[in-house]
């Protein structure tokens, strides 16, 4: 069985590129880089076909025993089931497309080999993360993707601010990782195993619904998920992470790595099911994040920052879906989101590159005719993001979440309202971006026009975005449940609240209207009457800058955590404790000076000392 080859190939690619990167001829670099991931993708297809056609619920392969101490025995072993198959499909296939795109996008960069090495390493780590059969190996992948994210955000290392963004991303996600680690420690303490399947089996056996341990553990796991997936309150790193090259943003910060949190929660859904309170918190985090990030996206100038906030917001949807136990809906949205967000980022990258690295949307405009392929694919992606009804994949995936957030067993009217508000805002900012970039008059002359290498991935992704939606259709039209059936062995279906089913079409109608009205609003403000937008902006300048800064979270953390820590460590740079020992030295020196004073060198003085000593001794003897 060649399961292990899937992560091993990109690792091999990375190794070759790191070690021989400098010596390799330039045209060979993308071939190795994309080729290794392409092979993985092909293997994934082959394996996926075998998996679907076979009756086994999972494939399992153990490469070697990693550690074995007294019951703690994580192995380097891979476990393929429906859930991980979806993930590795997205990772390898979208990853491959992005590699192909990067082959042209990065061609003039000095660090061409380095870039592909990092990307390959990332793919390997991400595959390890989703294929791991135990939590420790998953943690390896988990941290590995963090490392690659750090390296790729800081890829253009000469800029100080890129380095800062990279470190911020690493450190903030590490805060979440620690929480995940605690969760693992507690799991091990409870069950003496960290094998995912065994943990799931034991959890179901030993815990009852609402168990306190389950609650604590699931909250700790959630902490990890929140950090990696840039959800409240650890979302601040993602907008800054856009300092990396656009393909990186597409692969890591949109399609794959940031959804690791979704994967984690889906993977441990057994534990979460046992802790309804934790699930509720997941839902609340998702709901709040999607609304907050949506409003923040409304005010951004930077094209990529809009997409970053939009990613946060869309992952918020996935969390919301997880929170209402709509597991397969979350995964479905993950997949569709991976397609259209990767598409949007790649297209944005093409736009930015053709405008000489101009990120500000207000300086773009009128690109509709200059970059037709980019325009059309971007439009398809944007439509999907805004969930325009019927024709886009995004509509079907998001609609399912909207519906289940109300009608699911754990659904709630507030969840639904938040999702609805989010949908409206999404549609507004998406088309604001669309209109500002591609419509209106041309503000910056177009330089480089993307070639075939960049266009083909865009087109493939655009097709996927559209087609992907049709594998899971709601009851009201078609009722195709291919995707959720596929996941059913792993992820249980949603239990519906009673007497709700008849409303489904109503909800869909509302969602569709909201999305369309969002487009309308965007049209009104940015095409029809652009002055109105400025007026609105100046009338609520404070709110605007508040949203622009992402609700002030950066400032808050800066004041609350970063500055005090930096201040304290700088104050203590020379180590207070050392002063203590220095004071011992000072006292010794001081005593030395005092005692030296008594050594006058005069003989009679010493005799005097003897006499005084004699007197005292005698007096002592007499008393």
């Amino acid at each position, binding site marked *: 069985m060649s399961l292990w080859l899937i992560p091993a190939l990109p690792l091999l690619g990375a190794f070759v590129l790191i070690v021989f990167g400098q010596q390799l001829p330039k045209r060979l670099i993308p071939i190795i880089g994309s080729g290794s991931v392409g092979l993985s993708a092909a293997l994934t297809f082959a394996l996926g076909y075998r998996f679907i056609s076979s009756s086994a619920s999972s494939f399992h392969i153990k490469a070697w*025993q990693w550690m074995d101490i007294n019951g703690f025995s994580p192995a380097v072993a891979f476990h393929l089931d429906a859930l991980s198959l979806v993930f590795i499909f997205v990772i390898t296939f979208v990853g491959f497309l992005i590699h192909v795109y990067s082959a042209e996008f990065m061609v003039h960069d000095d660090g061409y080999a380095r870039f592909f090495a990092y990307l390959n390493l990332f793919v390997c780590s991400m595959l390890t993360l989703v294929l791991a059969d135990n939590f420790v190996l998953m943690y390896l992948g988990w941290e590995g993707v963090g490392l690659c994210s750090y390296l790729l955000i800081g890829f253009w290392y000469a800029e100080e601010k890129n*380095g800062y963004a990279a470190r911020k991303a690493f450190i903030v996600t590490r805060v979440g990782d620690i929480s995940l680690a605690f969760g693992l420690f507690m799991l091990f303490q409870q069950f003496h195993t960290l094998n995912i399947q065994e943990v799931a089996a034991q959890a179901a056996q030993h815990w009852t619904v609402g168990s306190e341990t389950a609650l604590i553990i699931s909250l700790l796991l959630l902490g990890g998920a929140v950090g990696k997936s840039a959800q409240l309150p650890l979302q601040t790193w993602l907008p800054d992470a856009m300092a990396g090259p656009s393909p990186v943003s597409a692969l890591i910060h949109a399609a794959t790595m940031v959804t690791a949190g979704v994967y984690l929660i889906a993977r441990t859904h057994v534990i979460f099911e046992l802790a309804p309170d934790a699930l509720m918190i997941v839902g609340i985090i998702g709901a709040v994040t999607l609304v907050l990030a949506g409003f923040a996206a409304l005010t951004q100038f930077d094209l990529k920052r809009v997409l970053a906030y939009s990613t946060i917001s869309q992952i918020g949807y996935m969390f919301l879906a997880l929170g209402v136990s709509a597991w397969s809906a979350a995964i479905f949205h993950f997949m569709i989101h991976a397609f259209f967000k990767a598409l949007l980022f790649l297209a944005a990258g093409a736009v930015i590159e053709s405008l000489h690295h101009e990120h500000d949307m207000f300086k773009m405009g009128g690109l509709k005719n200059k970059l037709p392929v980019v325009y059309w694919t971007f439009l398809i992606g944007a439509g999907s993001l805004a969930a325009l009804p019927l024709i886009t994949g995004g509509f079907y995936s998001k609609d399912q979440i909207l519906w289940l957030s109300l009608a699911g067993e754990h659904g709630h009217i507030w969840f639904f309202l938040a999702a609805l508000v989010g949908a409206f805002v999404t549609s507004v900012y998406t088309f604001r971006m669309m209109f500002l970039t591609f419509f209106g008059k041309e503000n910056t002359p177009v330089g480089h026009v993307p070639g075939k290498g960049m266009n083909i991935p865009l087109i493939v992704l655009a097709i996927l975005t559209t087609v992907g939606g049709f594998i899971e259709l709601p009851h009201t039209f078609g009722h195709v449940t291919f995707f959720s059936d596929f996941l059913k062995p792993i992820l249980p279906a949603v239990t519906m609240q009673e007497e709700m089913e008849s409303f489904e079409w109503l909800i869909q109608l509302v969602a569709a209207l909201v999305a369309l009205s969002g487009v309308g609003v965007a049209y009104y403000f940015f095409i029809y009457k652009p002055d109105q937008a400025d007026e609105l902006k100046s009338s609520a300048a404070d709110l605007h800058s508040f949203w622009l800064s992402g609700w002030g979270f950066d400032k808050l953390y800066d004041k609350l955590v970063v500055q005090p820590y930096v201040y304290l460590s700088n104050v203590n740079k020379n180590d207070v404790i*050392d002063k203590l020992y220095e004071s011992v030295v000072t006292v010794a020196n001081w005593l030395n000076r005092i005692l030296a004073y008594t050594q006058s060198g005069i003989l009679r003085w010493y005799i005097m000392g003897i006499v005084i000593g004699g007197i005292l001794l005698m007096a002592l003897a007499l008393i």
Partner: protein
Amino acid sequence: MILVAFIAILMTGGIIAWIAASWSHSASRWISLVTLLVDFSLAISVWMNSSGLEWIEKFSVPWVPDFGISFSLALDGLSLLMLVLTFFLGIFGVLVSWNEIQERVGFFHFNLLWVLAGISGVFLTMDLFLFYFFWEVMLIPMYFLIGIWGHENKRYAAFKFFIFTQASGLLMLLAILGLYFVHKSNSGTGTFDYFQLLGTQIPLGTSRWLMLGFLAAFIVKLPVVPFHTWLPDAHSQAPTAGSLILAGLLLKTGAYGLIRFVVPLFPEASAELAPWAMLLGVVGILYGASLAFAQTDLKRLVAYTSVSHMGFVILGVFAFNQLAMQGVVMQMITHAISTGALFAIAGVLYERIHTRDILAMGGFWGKAPFMGVVTLIFVMASLGLPGLGNFVAEFLTLIGSWQANPMLTIFAAIGIVTATAYSLRIMQKVFLGKWQSEKAMPDLSLREKLIFIPLIVTIIWLGLFPQTVINTVKPMIDKQFKIEQPTSIQNNNGVQ
């Protein structure tokens, strides 16, 4: 006999290297290198042939029989690993000084090999008197290494190092003598033999004091936080090989002492102390990390990271379970390699730009990408990236200490976040950012690559296949926890 050979080869090699230096400097270097290679291959062959027994080799002849002193050496899994590590790092110690040391070359190599001999002795000896002897043997050449070939503030650093270790070593001597007399009054025969002293029944009050004596020497060496201040000075002032050996091996003798002597000899007293010791460990982790974050001297920064990492050792030792103990052993090895490598990088940079100030560096990646990759790997090791050895160590330690004391483990794990902060700061200030200076920055030479590639291979090997190491120490740890089990459980309940 082979155990004596380990030490004797180093000592003779040292003397020959000293003499040879009067002919030619490079002869001295080659002799040291060959000496270490011989010892290393011997140690490896012992490792290959070792069975699963607790004691692989033993050797003992009476020395001063009237006082029960014997020249007693013994090798178990832990000693073996430490010994292999000693010779392994020793080789790199010679290699990094190849160009750096140009004055009194012979005496330098003599001191280098004798430090290593002392360290090997410490790891091998099973007689407390002999242990103290080797403890001192290891101290004096190190003092010379710092004091003669160090940087600008070498005298101060050497004195500080000497006074701290010597003062705490004397406390240990007192404790050794105390133990001797307690055993003598119990059994009628006085002995310094470790195996005979093991089961000594000591009244708890006495045992507390004796343990503190041992502890003093070990936690100063380790170092644990209020006693750590010698370390940044010694590390930053020592020549590269000195820093490498200090960080890689000398600190480990403290950890080794904790595992070998403090816990087995005084089980009850150390169980009593455990929560406080763990607390000190946690304080060390956070305090060291915070100081490391503020430093601008590269070697000083790395030195403080040692303080932080060694906090995990004491945390793990006093967690009293197998996982944590395995983690501690891993930590000893991996920290030696990763920190040693970082010091070597600092040395390599110092040879090129003659400064250790990270504010004067920046953007070296463009000029020296190979060095950048090497540094990246070891920086990642120091922040505990999975796949590298340090992760195994820290994860095992934490998962073990979680069973003993979750609250402290939470704080210890915060140290991992702070470790991220300071580690990335190294990377940022040195290799990323803009190229500032006009100085030439050649990439690593062949000799330097020869230093770093084996280190990289080892750290990755330890990260992916730690089971070899785990199996080697397993008999020793199993044995220890057969004795420890009841007290440790009691302790756990008490702490929680």
